[in-house]
């Protein structure tokens, strides 16, 4: 069976992509499975300059999910190009580069640099809840999304994915803003802003007080948003949020996604990416689908 998908200038051998921030630059998980089996990788969010990230604790377990507040710890875009691309290029694996910045200039500078690098797409992270400046501020309003998307579009020679935050009143507005400003694709959802308290210490568990919620708990919110966005935009959608297996992924595809990203579930089960692709394949066999794209939006209403 053919699991490949083609959209937004990306060719993926299967629709399962490792979600940004949960898979580093692929080195660690490559000790556990063959990265050639992934549909793609979205690397840890990069900034122009290296970032230290937030103080620990950076993670809290919540019912059916986790909160994280890594705060974009990363070696910077230059070190990435120098040290990580050669490693990743050993594999037949589309590289999506997730980027975040404090200012439109930051985003543009990175997009320009990456346009000349050996990568496959750029994912604009305008939705990270764990940094003080920029990022989520842009992603929270249609105007902010428009602004960043438009300026980056001008300099970006790679397929441009805009990653949307779920922490908005109406995600179709930010999705439409991204589309209108030249995005080739939207990916959603980033994490839901949340908080957990250690009642013995009477302190937030995360040193940064609040963090981003991901994992199975957020799945219904994510499916809903993919569904809503798919009704309002024509560009393809990469869906994510709480996917743990092929069945979950099929929910996102039916809701309107062209591909999915999987993150948190890999912490518990490093086999999740491969198993999710296999699960989609099994579903297609059982129900007589020949191509993954036939599943996209195939909801009976």
């Amino acid at each position, binding site marked *: 069976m053919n699991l490949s998908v083609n959209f937004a200038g990306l060719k993926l051998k299967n629709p399962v992509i490792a979600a940004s921030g949960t898979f580093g630059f692929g080195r*660690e*998980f490559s000790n556990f499975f063959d990265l050639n089996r992934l549909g793609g990788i979205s690397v840890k969010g990069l900034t122009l300059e290296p970032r230290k990230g937030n103080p*620990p*604790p*950076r993670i809290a377990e919540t019912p059916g*999910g986790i909160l994280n507040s890594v705060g974009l710890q990363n070696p910077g875009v230059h070190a990435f190009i120098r040290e990580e691309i050669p490693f990743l290029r050993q594999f037949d694996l589309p590289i999506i580069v997730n980027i975040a910045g404090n200012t439109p200039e930051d985003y543009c500078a990175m997009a320009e640099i990456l346009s000349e690098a050996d990568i496959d797409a750029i994912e604009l992270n305008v939705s990270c809840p764990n940094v003080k400046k920029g990022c989520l501020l842009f992603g929270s309003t249609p105007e902010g999304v428009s602004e960043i998307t438009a300026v980056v579009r001008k300099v970006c020679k790679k397929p441009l994915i805009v990653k949307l935050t779920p922490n908005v009143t109406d995600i179709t507005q930010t999705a439409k803003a991204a589309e209108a400003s030249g995005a080739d694709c939207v990916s959603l959802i980033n994490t839901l802003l949340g908080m957990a308290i250690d009642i013995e210490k009477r302190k937030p568990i995360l040193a940064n007080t609040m963090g981003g919620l991901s*994992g199975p708990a957020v799945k219904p919110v994510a499916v809903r948003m993919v569904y809503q966005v798919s009704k309002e935009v024509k560009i393809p959608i990469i869906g994510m949020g709480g996917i743990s297996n092929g069945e979950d992924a099929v929910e996102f595809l039916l809701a309107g996604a062209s591909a999915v990203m999987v993150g*948190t579930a890999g912490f*518990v089960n490093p086999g999740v990416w491969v198993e999710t692709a296999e699960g989609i394949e099994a579903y297609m066999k059982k129900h007589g689908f020949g191509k993954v794209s036939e599943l996209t939006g195939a909801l009976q209403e």
Partner: protein
Amino acid sequence: MNFDTIIRKTEKLSEGIYLIRLHSARIASKAVPGQFVNVRCSDGLNAYLRRPISICRVDRKNNTVDIVFMNRGKGTNLLCSFAQGDTLDAMGPLGNGFTLPKEKERIAVVGGGIGVFPLLYLLEESHCACKTAFLGFRTKEAIVLQDAFHRTAQKLVIATDDGSYGTNGLITAPFMAWLEAERPDRVYSCGPAPMMKIVARACVQKGIFCEVSMEQRMGCGIGACLVCACKVQDGDDYQYAHVCKDGPVFPAERLIF
């Protein structure tokens, strides 16, 4: 991906402290002291994340691995109900272990509470001239594996916070006195951060080789998610290293407590 191990034995060592003996050629053949396994306490959403537990002892001949843990939350509480014959999903061995001492060296381990478990494994694998163990517990009732430590270490000093056994108070007091007098070649420590901080600082000051094993809440356990941050020196500045991949064992002089 299959990290299943079979539980060969479970034992309650003291109030709230449990031992699980796993059968796993994979772990037993590769493990070194200081490494940990990352275990699933349930196969669903209850205690969703894996829990890191140090390797406490390995029997290479029988391919068994002992882990010992304290029941202190959702996950470890679920672990308590595992029984002989059950399957336990244990990823590992993970992380970097301690630097083993050379034959002629004199070493000390300084452990507190649940920090003592990896130190037992370290002592048992350290074939060196003289091994001293300093162990701190809350009370007499909390003392575990005393016999095992006794067998492997030439000298064993125990302190309890409430004085119900051994030295009264923190284990750092007898350790510091001994350190002054003995100047060992290597010191290894694992336990509460304040304890490790005292041990690390004293050794660094005196130029004694010292490694400490850090704890931090984890996500992936392998270095991919960057949540298990731990402040380390970076020239004049600091950086966040990661306990699961760069540690859990760090050279004392690298750490910023």
